[in-house]
């Protein structure tokens, strides 16, 4: 007897719900539980997962931009900072998907670690522009690092459960 894996549409819906919750829940005064990493930056999972899963249409970047604007609004910061971070993660994820010819858990994890490192660098460049020179990128780096460590646990929400079964993004067509 074999259990059927959830469809890609269901996984995508769960991933979107988690991404939305990760933006909204830390902003609600429900205690410090929801403000702890990885929740504030769990959208990075969605950005990388949708990019690596070959979501090359307009929906993924547009959804990430809207989530980023929502995050900006809730954080009280200037608009544009979080869309840039999330879309940077998406672009790096697309690049990683092209480079990886036969992705497995380790390579995907490594790709996500590289993606978070790039977003930290982008944050170091853009955050002072948006929020002033006094801003510290250290909290973002800490949250991004924890998000990277926990990536294998949530990978099934954004990618097919079996790497060999899903379409290989880096494969030549």
């Amino acid at each position: 007897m074999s259990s059927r894996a959830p469809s890609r549409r269901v996984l995508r819906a769960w991933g979107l719900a988690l991404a939305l919750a990760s933006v909204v829940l830390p902003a609600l005064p429900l205690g410090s539980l929801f403000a702890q990493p990885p929740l504030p930056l769990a959208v990075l999972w969605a950005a990388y997962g949708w990019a690596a899963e070959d979501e090359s249409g307009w929906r993924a970047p547009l959804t990430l931009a809207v989530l980023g604007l929502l995050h900006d609004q809730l954080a009280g910061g200037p608009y544009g900072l979080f869309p840039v971070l999330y879309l940077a993660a998406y672009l790096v994820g697309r690049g990683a998907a092209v480079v990886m010819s036969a992705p497995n858990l380790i390579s995907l994890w490594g790709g996500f670690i590289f993606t978070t490192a790039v977003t930290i660098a982008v944050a170091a460049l853009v955050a002072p522009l948006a929020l002033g020179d006094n801003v510290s990128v250290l909290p973002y780096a800490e949250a991004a690092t924890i998000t990277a460590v926990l990536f294998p646990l949530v990978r099934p929400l954004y990618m097919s459960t079996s790497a060999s079964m899903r379409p290989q993004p880096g494969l030549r067509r």
Partner: protein
Amino acid sequence: MARRRSVVRRAGSGRRIAPGVLLAIVLVIGGLGLIITQMTRSPAGQAAQQAGDGAAAAAGRVATGPARAGEGFLERLASMWGASERIEQLERENRELHAWRELAERLAERNARYEALLRMPGDAFGEGADISNSIAAQLVLDSGGPFTRTLVANAGADHGVRVGYIAVNENGLIGRVVSVGQRSARILMVDDYNSRIPVMGEASRVRAVLAGQATRPPDLYTAPFQMQAPRLDFIVGAQSLREGERIITSGDGGLFPRGIPVGVARRSGDGWRVALAASQQPIDFVRILPYVGIERPEDAPVADDGPPLTAASSFSSIGRETMAPPPTAPTVMPTQPPPRREPAPRPQAQTPSVEVAAPPASPAPAEPSQPEQQE
């Protein structure tokens, strides 16, 4: 086939860019442009932010409603089982507290007598703030981001909140209102990286600047303040700051009233940090104190017939209350004294105030009495 149609060919090359990637690049450029346009803090951008705050605050009230309604329900239910033991424990604590209260009242009375003997001015909570007209509000949104530390309260311009008002809770200072919408206000917390608050030790009177760090208890910078105003009492004061001393706002700078409790000083390595009093428990309700910062005298000049603001006149201004007023016109023409054969050496440390304090009717000195230490 659909995938092939979704891929556009870039002109002049054989490489293809997916529309999603192209859109992401455009959106990134748009986001950077958005950031740059908001660097000037235009009124339109702030109005959009405040309108968004209002909508988000309304959504936050709705979203947190059920959670607040059920808050502590399980704890209250569980506490019903041990009610009798709890009552006994509270009665025991009450008896002990009676003894402590008597001791505290005696000490407070003695302290009041000492202060009356020394004629010490009382330290009022939020001296200068309009505490009687404070506005109570509930927090409905947190910042939720890794960069900033702000809160959104459900009271805005309709309730009388203005930018610059002070937000406190029952334990101490939370922050300052930085943006006001119709029915919401955004509060910059004291641990935000943008927060710099002049504070002082309640007992030692050490002045310092509280600098927010966003992730950890705020640093208590004493050195920068001393460098800007290198006075001896500050150097001595910085050394006399004590572990566990209560830190209150000093009122320096005019943005915060004096005397609001901020926290407790804690030594951390080479520096000092403050364990914030407001964060002893989750911040839910806040009190917004009307307070308008003290404006500079240059911003609101008052017609004054005093002397002009020069170095020489400032000396006479300082001594105006303690000295006889100078004559409006010379009564006697100063006579030229006979030349001295051996003029007495002038004292080295001669303060300008002494020269100004010389009685005007005295004989004119040998040399013109212009202050020499003018800078």
